[in-house]
């Protein structure tokens, strides 16, 4: 579906050439320390910043060759901590940029527990509620998400409490497993990445240094080197990846 063929940037912020393919129904978490190039990579995947080397293709067609409207029906993006200017209501915001009707808007609102807030304006919402609005808007843009659609999210859980984090990650996983979306999510919380992602890409200094199932990538030793943090692994349950806990 989405393929990276030696795609990267040579100018700052640089990104070492990367080759990989995203399959429908896959949830990929991008993790790494601050400044590792996670958001830069998301810009590359979304087509916002065209690659300076290699290419990024959706269905074997370079992203730059897609008509913007056609691409928007297949790929949606939730940027980091966006506060839209002016005072939109939640319903107006969720419908923004989509051709979906009121039923799809209502469904997207319900998916993100926003139905009760639909007529409230953004000024009165908490950071977490606003963040959920932006996810609902992206879902609505994809018309609920057909198989083969691509959803890109930059730290979507950063302002959410743990209950909302869990609900959002479960929703993303369900979108991948049941509806066949490819979901790419930049995450700071390594435990969320370990619990919900099919694959994890570990970034460091503008380079992807490891990729694979969470159990293979998120070892405490490797993470300690990459993040410069001392971590313990705690076994949770059989068959589940270990929880990562900061040493005191």
């Amino acid at each position, binding site marked *: 579906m989405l393929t990276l063929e030696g795609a990267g940037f040579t100018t700052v912020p640089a990104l070492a050439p990367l080759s990989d393919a995203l399959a429908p129904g896959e949830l990929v978490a991008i993790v790494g320390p601050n400044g590792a190039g996670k958001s830069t990579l998301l*810009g590359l995947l*979304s*087509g*916002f910043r065209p690659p300076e080397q290699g290419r990024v293709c959706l269905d074997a067609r370079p992203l730059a060759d897609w008509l*913007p*409207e056609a*691409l*928007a*029906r297949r*790929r*949606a*993006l*939730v*940027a980091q901590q*966006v*506060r*839209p*200017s*002016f*005072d*939109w*209501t939640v319903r*107006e915001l969720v419908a*923004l*940029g*989509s051709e979906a009707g009121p039923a799809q808007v209502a469904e997207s609102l319900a998916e993100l527990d926003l139905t009760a807030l639909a*007529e409230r304006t953004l000024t009165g919402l908490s950071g977490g509620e606003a963040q959920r609005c*932006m996810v609902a*808007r*992206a879902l609505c*843009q994809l018309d609920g998400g057909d198989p083969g659609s691509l959803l*890109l999210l930059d730290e979507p859980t950063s302002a959410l409490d743990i209950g909302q984090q869990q609900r959002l990650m479960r929703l993303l996983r369900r979108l991948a497993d049941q509806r066949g979306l490819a979901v790419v999510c930049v995450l700071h919380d390594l435990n969320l990445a370990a619990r919900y992602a099919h694959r994890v890409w570990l970034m460091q200094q503008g380079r992807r240094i490891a990729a694979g199932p969470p159990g293979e990538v998120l070892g405490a030793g490797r993470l300690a080197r990459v993040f410069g943090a001392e971590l313990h692994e705690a076994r949770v349950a059989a068959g589940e990846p270990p929880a990562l806990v900061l040493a005191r």
Partner: protein
Amino acid sequence: MIGRHSGFPDRQALNGLVLALLAAWLLAAFSGSLGLSPRLLLGDWPTPLDWQVWWQLRLPRLLLATLVGAMLAGSGAAMQGLFRNPLADPSLLGLASGAGLAVALWIVLFDASGPLGLYGQFAAGFLGALAVCLVVFRLGRGGPGQEALFTLLLAGLAINTLAGAFGGLLAFLASDEQLRQLSLWGMGSLAHALWPAALGALLCIPPALWWLCRCARGLDLLQLGELTAHGAGLDAPALKRRVVLATTLGVGVCVALAGIIGFLGLLVPHCLRLWLGPGHRLLLPASMLGGALLLLVADTLARTLASPAEIPVGLLTSLLGGPYFLWLLMQRRRSC
């Protein structure tokens, strides 16, 4: 109540504004230092002088007030969307004074009389506004943050000050006739609206308004930030080029024709946004109608309050807009 939470369809808000504009047209058409009877509409012409006043003076003036008001308020709404900032306005950001300086240069350096001179003024206004817009745009990029807002307002202040200083220099260099022309035009007035000016406005302003209305969806998406808007299918650089060209063309022509009429672009979209919500599909045409309505009413007051003398309409809009702007700043300060 008509508005975003009332359940009334958008069309009714626009219809209401159209009706109000028609009423203002009727009021304006028959008020003035020479009071005319509405029987004129039925072809019952009292005197040839009445007909001449109505056709040669009043009708082009009403047309010009409508077009200039629509353009200034429409530009304000579009610029606020483009800069993602409710305080962006063609006069506050220095666009109008940039256009004004270019027009003043044209008046002083070239022969500004006759239709060719008038269209030269249009071109000068457009180029002046475009130059300022490009400078301000570079300085004010970066979203709705406080820093970007201050940069914008400071850039506008600096440009307004510079344009004022150069305007003073031009007044110093101008001949007596040019000086009279400069000072009458500079106060912001529709007093010299005749058919050549109205036809020029008809040629330039409606296409600019139409072009801005076509940018409504893009301006909505831009409020999500450039990255998200790109993800939703917006070609942001193309949208910015379109909005900048349409607003600078429109504002340049308005300034060339009527001088600097301040605050219309700030006041009208801001009030209408509170009423109808921030969606540009409705806000842009509503602002255009509201701007036309406000300028038409202000111009009728300017013509009649001190009749037979006239108050420059720019002074009236500034008297209305200045306190409103201060109130707006206080509200923002409180909400911060």
